[in-house]
């Protein structure tokens, strides 16, 4: 077990447990935020795992999750807009914490990888992860007020 895997285990365990708790309890708005946080916890964990196993090929998983995770959250934001409109959730602190943690992980992995094609993929992943996370929170807060027809 190296440090990378240990960090991944901690991130997965703590983030996963917290997200599971959030996703199963409380009002709908909080659940959707927790669903969004799943991406923020698991995606960095996948990056750490790829480094820990010494397999650059595993980065594809993190890339795909960074891409599709926010899309999944947007689905809920769009189709649950009726339930969410009661209390627009605001999770600014949580969002920025998650974004910061994601950035830190991406940075650490980038430093370990060094310049090259793999670095580009990592940076794209990081940008998608952080951007998607913030946009998804934004969409939950005020993205789909009063969507009825489409």
């Amino acid at each position: 077990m190296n440090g990378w895997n240990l960090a991944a285990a901690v991130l997965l365990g703590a983030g996963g447990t917290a997200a599971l708790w959030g996703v199963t309890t409380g009002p709908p708005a909080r659940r959707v935020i927790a669903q969004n946080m799943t991406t923020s916890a698991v995606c960095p964990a996948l990056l750490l795992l790829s480094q820990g196993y010494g397999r650059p090929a595993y980065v594809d998983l993190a890339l795909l999750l960074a891409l599709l995770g926010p899309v999944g959250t947007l689905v809920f934001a769009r189709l649950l807009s009726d339930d969410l409109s009661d209390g627009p959730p605001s999770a600014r602190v949580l969002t920025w914490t998650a974004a910061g943690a994601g950035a830190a992980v991406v940075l650490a992995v980038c430093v370990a990888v060094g310049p090259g094609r793999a670095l580009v993929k990592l940076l794209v992943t990081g940008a998608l992860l952080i951007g998607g996370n913030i946009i998804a929170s934004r969409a939950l807060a005020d993205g789909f007020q009063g969507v009825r027809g489409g």
Partner: protein
Amino acid sequence: MHVLPYLVAVHLFLTGCYGLATSRNLIHAVGCLAVCQSATYVLLLAVGYRDGGTAPVFSDIRPGSRPVVDPVVQALTLTDIVVGATVTALLLALVLQIAKRHGTVDPDELRELRG
């Protein structure tokens, strides 16, 4: 640790079955069926795992340099996931039609086919 993954698979299957049998909403029942199916993924991959192994993909490692896990179960699981997604879609389509024709998605209120 020797049997934990297998026991988790059993747990998933039985939990899904319990949900299916007691469900009050057909969309929920289809979700429970997906839980049942995830048992097969976990079982298959657990069967193919090898201690200290890595993925049998040789784009970034030299063949033979590290032990690899069983690729066959991974191919089987891939097929299984596709099957699961399509079956879910098809069953949801049927649920939509039930909602239209019966006006409910509660299996307790479907009283057309009896005896």
